[in-house]
Every structure is written in C-alpha cells, then in structure tokens.
C-alpha cells in the first residue's frame, strides 16, 4: 500500500478461530491500566451468535504494514460477548473481545483463612487456588530475589513438576529451561513475577491432586497455550542495574541475613545511600500494599498490584514489538532470534522522553484538541496518605512542594519569632550562624526579622506548621493548597524509618560519604540546585543552600530527601495534569498507550505538545480507517523550555542520567541539564532504554522542533532514531512527494516500529490461518454435515448445559489421566 501521494488503501483482515471473515466495522481500544479490547461488527447469520456460547473463539486482526510490509498483528484476543441489532436499513452482529492475557485473571487466588475442613474444600470462596504462603513476607522476599539463573535439565531436584516429590522446596529463583531462549529478559523487577509464578506452581504441584484445575488446565494454558512468559520484557537498561544492586535483607534487628540470597530493591525504594535497610523497607512496603488487594484476586491483577506498589506498571501491547531476543543486540541475522514483546513491565515514567514510535508528526493527524483547566492547579502540595493508620500527620502535613513553599515556611518561622540568631550553642546551629528556638515569651513579644545575611533555619524545620505565609509565586497566582495522595510505599517508608530511628535499631544516615558514588551524585544535585535556585533578586545567594535537601547542612535524613523530591515531583504531576487532549489522524499501528508522546505542529504558529499517551483507538470500516489518541499531562513545547519540569521520578534521575552538571576547569557550574531538552547524555540513555523493548530509540522535543524558530526540523531515520535530515522537496510524476517530511506515509516511515508478523505467529503457535480468498473458496465444495448443528443426524439428543456446539469433550477422568494427575 506504500504510496507517496497519501492516497492509501490499508488492508486489515479479521480472523475468528483462524478463519478470515467479512466485517463491516472494527474498533480496537488500548488504554493505560487495561488489556486491549476490540469490538467487531459482522454481517448477521443464524447461529453466528451461538459461537460464543460456552466457548471463547479466538480473534486475530492483522494489518498490512505500510512501511515494512507483511501482515502484522493489530489485536489478539477472544470473544466474550455479543449483541444483535437490526433495523429497516441494516442488521449486524457485534462481538466484544478482550485481549488473550485476560485469561490470566481466570486464575483466582484466595488469600482468606483456611477453612477447618479438609483440603478438598479449602476454597470456600470458589477461587481456583489457595496459596499456602503466597503474599507472606517470606514469599515476597523470595519474589524479590527474582531469577538467578536457568535450571539445567539435569537439575531435576529443582524441577517444578508433578514428578518431583520435593517440589515444595525447589529454588524458585531458577528459570525453567523452556524459557531459556528469552533468559536475558528475565532480569530485574520483571523476574520477581517469574519467581512468584514459580512459587505458585510449586505450591500447586505439591498437592497437585487438590489443584487439578490450575495444574492441568491453567498452568499449561498460560505457559504453553498463550506463551505468556515467552512474550514479556522489562527495560533492561534499568533492570540490569536493579539486578546488579541486590542487597541482603535485614532482619528485625537491622542485621543483614542470608547474604547468599540477596533481593532486588525497586528503584522507587532506593535512597541516596545503599544499605540493606532498603531491602527490608521494600519488602514491608510491598507487603503492605498487597494486603489491600483483598481476599480474592486474579493472578494478572495481582501482578498489576505488585508492580504498582513498586511504582512500576504493566503495559499490554495490542501490536507486540518484534525485537531481538538478546536485548543488547539491535539486529539479527535470523528471524529465529527475534521475539515478540507483548507485555512490558516498566517503571512509571509519564514525563520522560517519548519513544520514536509515539511521535505524531504533522502529516499524521487531521485534528487535535487540547484543553487546560488551570482552576484546579494547586499553588502548593503536601503529601498525605491514609493507608497507614496514624501516619497521616507524618506524611501528610509536613513534606511540601515546590521549593518556594518550603522557603516561605522557613521565612515564616523567622517572622513569627520562633527562631532567632543566638550565641547559645544549640544542635540546630547551621553554617556558623547559631540559631536557637525562641522561648514562648520571646516568640510572643518579639518579631524577629529575617537575619541580614539571609540565612534561614534548617530545611528540616520546614516540615512543621506553615504559619500561613504565602509562597513567593502565590503572590501572583493566589493560594490553592492541595493534599496529594502519596504513593503508599512512601508512607511505609516514613513509618519504618521513624520507628527505626526512635528505637535505635537502624541508623538512617544523614548524608552519604562525599567520596562515595552517591556522595558525588549528591554533590552534583546540590551544585545544580544552587545554580538554578540559589538566587535572590536575580543574584547568587549562597545562603540558600540550606534549602536544598541534598545539601549536607540542610539537616535532613536520607529518607527525607526522597520525600522532598517526591513532593516536588508530585507538584510537577499536578501542574501537568491540567492539560488533556486528543488527536485523530491516519491509521497508526505503532503508537503505544502508557508511554510519553509528542504531537508536532506543522507550523511555527501552532503549539506542539509533549504528553502521556492515555489511550489509542483504531476505527476501521469498509470505507475508512483512522486512529484516535487521547493524551493526558500535556505540556506545550514553550512550557518545556520555560519551566523546570521534573521528567522522571527523582529516584530514576541518576539511572537514566537525566541530571547533568557541566563545570568549568575550576569546578564551577556552567550549566545544568535536568530536563528532556538539549540534554544529550540523557537522550542517549533514553535511546538505550527504549531500543531493547520497542526496537526504536527516543525523540527529544528539541530534536523535533527548532526552539529558536519553532519550525519543524527535517528528519531522517537512522538506526531507529530520528536525526536531522536535509530538506528536499522532491515531487514525483504522479504529484506525490518522496520526502518523508511531507506525506503521512513518509511520517509513518520515520516513526515506525517492527511489529510481530503473522508468519511468526503461524510458526510459533503452529497456526494455519484460512484467508478469505478466491483460491480457498473454490466452487467444488464438501458438505460438512455436523451432527451438532443438525438434529436430524444427531438422534435428537440435546446438548447439556455447558457444552459448546463446536467442541468435542473428553471424559474428565480421561483428561486427568492424560495429564498425569493422580486420581484419588
């Protein structure tokens, strides 16, 4: 269909149970937090609605790739419902479909207490499986060990199988040999999911005769039928670091235990110091979160909850990425070395660089609308969390953002006379100027102005009352406070740190050693902070360094640095949440919800946007096809260049090399790059971050638009990333343009990514799809007299409830025997 005129015909084919069928309309939807779904509209026929009864027919939708050619996957799922509608003008049957990964939620887990009866009725809630220890601290510690290696076939004592009598005590950190071809993908946090799965399996196989449904049906379905675990990946740039940073867990007394079995620390829990305390915190926080998943939950939902509690998320791609199995490779010689990535487990990064496939170039959309609701944007935030009883005040009332609010609170302390310069020695002495709390009498009697040298009390004191002092920028925009629900893990972190400090069992260091890696990073963060914020009336003001959480003299503990940074990051999220919008444009199978996106304007007179892609819908009819995209947290490119907007969680800034401080020969800071604009080191990391999972690099707004003129840069594509091209308006004899910048198809060429092919699916799943083509539907035909469809030939015996018209059923006892289930 490739055309340089943008007069396109897009082939899209629909297969039900491997048979191509005609359709009048298809709609495919993908949204953050959900598996993809589809709606199919077919010509009606008697009996067509019955195909859904007691069965879930498989649905594959393919599109012919406009750039790379070949039929590629647009949706894979199964039918879960239907409807019929008819009027004078039309009639149709509509099928509702959901992605195949939704079958994982059939595996329901019951966490409630054991009944007093026997094993045979140990699941009073009718869930599929009752784990004997899943969700406990021990199982979480095990899960955070992730995967240490691949089990060899000879290592039968660690085999998770029915035939292993010691199956309950196997090493869950070993990958089953059947997944060895994708072993590089099972590192870091995604491998915690595999470890959990291994735990669940060994627990089920231990008493296989009581877990028949899971053992004989769902484990094979998930592992072999759906090949779910062959099609999962994390972003290796981060996950390799997480894997390398495993720590021994602390016991209750703060001592490290079991050094041979260290656990992963999710990036969200990494403090500015590396101690085993973090591992203990991680486990406690995740366990705390999982306690809120309820007594009964689906397995896929449990994964979601687990990763959400670690500031991760699970993204299901309707069009899986086709990439090398080895994440370090960018190309392969043999297609057998490719894999399809359908499920991505990724850290939440809503404001990071967009992957190239999520760039919407000017010729790709026909309409855009963006709205901004400024009324609800707070002028200040304070962290609060209600999930931990008794901790609301600790988290909710003290940690404020942005920085200007913390400064105003400290100013308030001075104005109210609660602190005063003094010569009396006091632990709160800072930077050679001694402060002491004023006595109540002094506070009431004296209004002490800000000291002439401008030095304020320790930043730690900003976590007290606000004293009703306006922030500097509230003077122009008004006072709009907002309590923000902090991530649950922050509440647990504060709770644990405070308890540990109070009991003296765990020492929370205040500042990393200057010679350590974290010490150097912290110095960069501090110098960068001073370069950007250490000013008063436009001039450098060294005294403001006390307001930087990364400054040694600020008097804040390591965990408090995270809290201050989290408050600032939350403020960025609040600000960006004001702009939402949508676009509609040409069919675009490449864009993925859950990742950032850029919408590039054609003219310098129009705004361009950086946003988070929230949902994607492909609408296909007999005479039209388009893709509409909804986005949230949008920022105009002018906002990006004018404001300091934190592009990532503070805890990922370092791993992603987002914070770069340039210095002159004397060590003085000359520039600070902390955003996604003009930050080459961060951009290079982002390319690496995306390439191993999506097969494309990243795109920086400053590489798409010339921020001096706001004109679109001419682009060319090199190794999956966009690079400056040469403007060349070449026109063909047919009136089309061969310049990728000037046509929709050209734009798609620039941003395309490789999607799993139909050939690959046929080979991997041993499928034969039956096309709706003339050579298949020859005039010579065979009558298929199906007794189930023909009561005359089936002796008039009706089907029992539960039986599909289209399946043959083995006797249950035969099925169990064929699966080596011990029949009691």
């Amino acid at each position, binding site marked *: 269909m490739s055309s340089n005129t943008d007069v396109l015909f897009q082939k899209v084919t629909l297969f*039900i*149970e*491997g*048979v*191509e*069928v*005609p359709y009048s309309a298809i709609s495919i939807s993908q949204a953050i937090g959900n598996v993809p779904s589809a709606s199919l509209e077919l*010509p009606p*026929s008697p*009996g*067509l609605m019955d*195909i859904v009864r007691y*069965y*879930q*027919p*498989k649905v594959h939708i393919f599109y012919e790739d406009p750039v790379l050619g070949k039929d590629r996957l647009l949706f894979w799922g199964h039918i879960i419902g239907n409807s019929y509608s008819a009027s004078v003008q039309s*009639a149709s049957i509509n099928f509702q479909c959901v992605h195949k990964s939704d079958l994982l939620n059939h595996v329901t887990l019951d966490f409630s207490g054991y009944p007093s009866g026997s094993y045979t009725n140990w699941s009073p809630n009718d869930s599929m499986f009752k784990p004997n220890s899943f969700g406990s601290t021990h199982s979480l510690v095990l899960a955070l060990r992730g995967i240490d290696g691949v089990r060899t076939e000879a290592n039968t004592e660690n085999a998770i199988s029915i035939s292993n009598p010691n199956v309950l005590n196997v090493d869950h950190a070993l990958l089953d040999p059947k997944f060895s071809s994708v072993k590089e993908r099972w590192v870091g946090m995604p491998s915690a999911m595999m470890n959990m799965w291994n735990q669940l399996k060994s627990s089920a196989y231990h008493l296989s005769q009581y877990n028949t449904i899971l053992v*004989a*049906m769902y484990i*094979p*379905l998930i592992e*072999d*039928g*759906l090949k779910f675990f062959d099609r999962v990946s994390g972003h290796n740039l981060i996950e390799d670091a997480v894997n390398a940073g495993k720590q021994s867990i602390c016991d209750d007394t703060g001592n490290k235990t079991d050094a041979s079995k260290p656990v992963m620390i999710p990036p969200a829990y990494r403090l500015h110091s590396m101690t085993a305390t973090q591992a203990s915190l991680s486990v406690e926080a995740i366990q705390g979160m999982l306690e809120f998943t309820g007594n009964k939950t689906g397995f896929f939902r449990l994964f979601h909850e687990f990763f959400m509690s670690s500031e991760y998320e699970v993204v299901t791609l309707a069009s899986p990425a086709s990439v090398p199995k080895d994440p370090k490779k960018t190309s392969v010689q043999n297609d057998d070395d490719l894999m399809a990535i359908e499920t991505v487990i990724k850290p939440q990064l809503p404001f990071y660089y967009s992957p190239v496939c999520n760039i919407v170039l000017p010729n790709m959309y026909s309409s855009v609308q963006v709205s901004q609701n400024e009324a609800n944007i707070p002028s200040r935030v304070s962290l609060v969390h209600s999930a931990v009883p008794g901790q609301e005040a600790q988290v909710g009332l003290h940690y404020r953002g942005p920085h200007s609010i913390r400064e105003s609170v400290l100013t308030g302390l001075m104005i109210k006379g609660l602190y005063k310069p003094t010569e009396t020695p006091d632990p709160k002495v800072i930077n050679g100027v001694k402060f002491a709390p004023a006595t109540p009498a002094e506070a009431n009697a004296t209004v002490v102005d800000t000291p002439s040298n401008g030095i304020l009390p320790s930043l730690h004191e900003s976590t007290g009352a606000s004293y009703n002092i306006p922030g500097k920028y509230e003077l122009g925009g008004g006072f709009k406070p907002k309590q923000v629900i902090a991530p649950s893990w922050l509440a647990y972190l504060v709770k644990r740190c405070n308890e540990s400090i109070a009991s003296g069992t765990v020492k929370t260091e205040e500042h990393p050693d200057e010679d350590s890696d974290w010490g150097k990073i912290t110095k960069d963060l501090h110098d960068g902070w001073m370069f950007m914020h250490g000013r008063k009336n436009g001039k450098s003001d060294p005294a403001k360094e006390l307001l930087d959480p990364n400054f040694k003299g600020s008097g804040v503990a390591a965990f408090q640095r995270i809290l201050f940074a989290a408050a600032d990051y939350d403020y960025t999220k609040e600000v960006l949440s004001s702009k939402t919008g949508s676009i509609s444009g040409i069919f675009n199978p490449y864009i993925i919800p859950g990742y950032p996106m850029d919408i590039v304007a054609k003219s310098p007179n129009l705004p361009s946007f950086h946003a988070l892609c929230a949902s994607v819908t492909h609408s296909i009819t007999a005479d039209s096809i388009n893709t509409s995209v909804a986005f949230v947290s949008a920022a105009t490119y002018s906002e990006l260049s004018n404001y300091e907007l934190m592009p990532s969680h503070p805890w990922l800034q370092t791993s992603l090399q987002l914070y770069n401080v340039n210095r002159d020969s004397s060590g003085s800071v000359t520039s600070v790059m902390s955003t996604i604009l003009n930050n080459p080191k961060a951009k290079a990391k982002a390319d690496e971050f995306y390439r191993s999972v999506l097969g494309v690099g990243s795109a920086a707004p400053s590489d798409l638009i010339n921020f001096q003129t706001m004109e679109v840069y001419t682009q060319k594509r090199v190794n999956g990333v966009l690079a400056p091209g040469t403007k060349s308006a070449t026109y063909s004899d047919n009136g089309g343009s061969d310049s990728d910048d000037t046509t929709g198809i050209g734009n798609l060429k620039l941003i395309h990514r490789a999607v799993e092919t139909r050939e690959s699916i046929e080979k991997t*799943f041993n*499928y*034969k799809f*039956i096309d*709706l083509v003339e*050579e*298949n*539907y*020859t*005039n*010579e*035909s*065979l*009558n*298929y*007299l*199906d*007794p*189930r*469809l*023909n009561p*005359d*030939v089936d002796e008039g015996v009706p089907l029992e409830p539960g039986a*599909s*018209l*289209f*399946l*043959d*059923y*083995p006797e249950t006892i035969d*099925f169990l025997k064929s699966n080596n289930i011990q029949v009691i």
Partner: protein
Amino acid sequence: MADTTLTTNIGYPRPGETGVRTSLIPAGLAKKISDTSMADECFVNQRFSSRLQAFLIGYNNSIYSEYSVYL
C-alpha cells in the same frame, strides 16, 4: 472431524434447500482446517476448533452466496 460427514457437492445449494443445516467446506480447505475440536486442545493449548472453523467457512459461503442479502 471424525464424527462429521463429508460429501462432494458442486455449486452452492440454496440455504435450507436440503432441509438440514450444513456447512460447506471448499475442497481446497479440507486439509487446512484444524485437526481437532477437542475442548482441552482448543482451550488449554489454544488450538483452533475444526467444528467452529467449518461453521465459519460455511458462514462465509452464506454471506458471499448469491442468496446473501449483502450482494
């Protein structure tokens, strides 16, 4: 497909003509359709059901036949 009957037919019958509901399998597709419609194969191993495939092939024939309201 063990319990089905295949008979050669030239041309398309009118729906309902034979008094029984049949599915038409073009001769060229007889070897392409799945070799099972066992429930566990089709659900656990995610194989295609030959019965359902046969029905859908018949559906296609019906939709594209000269008797279809869509022509």
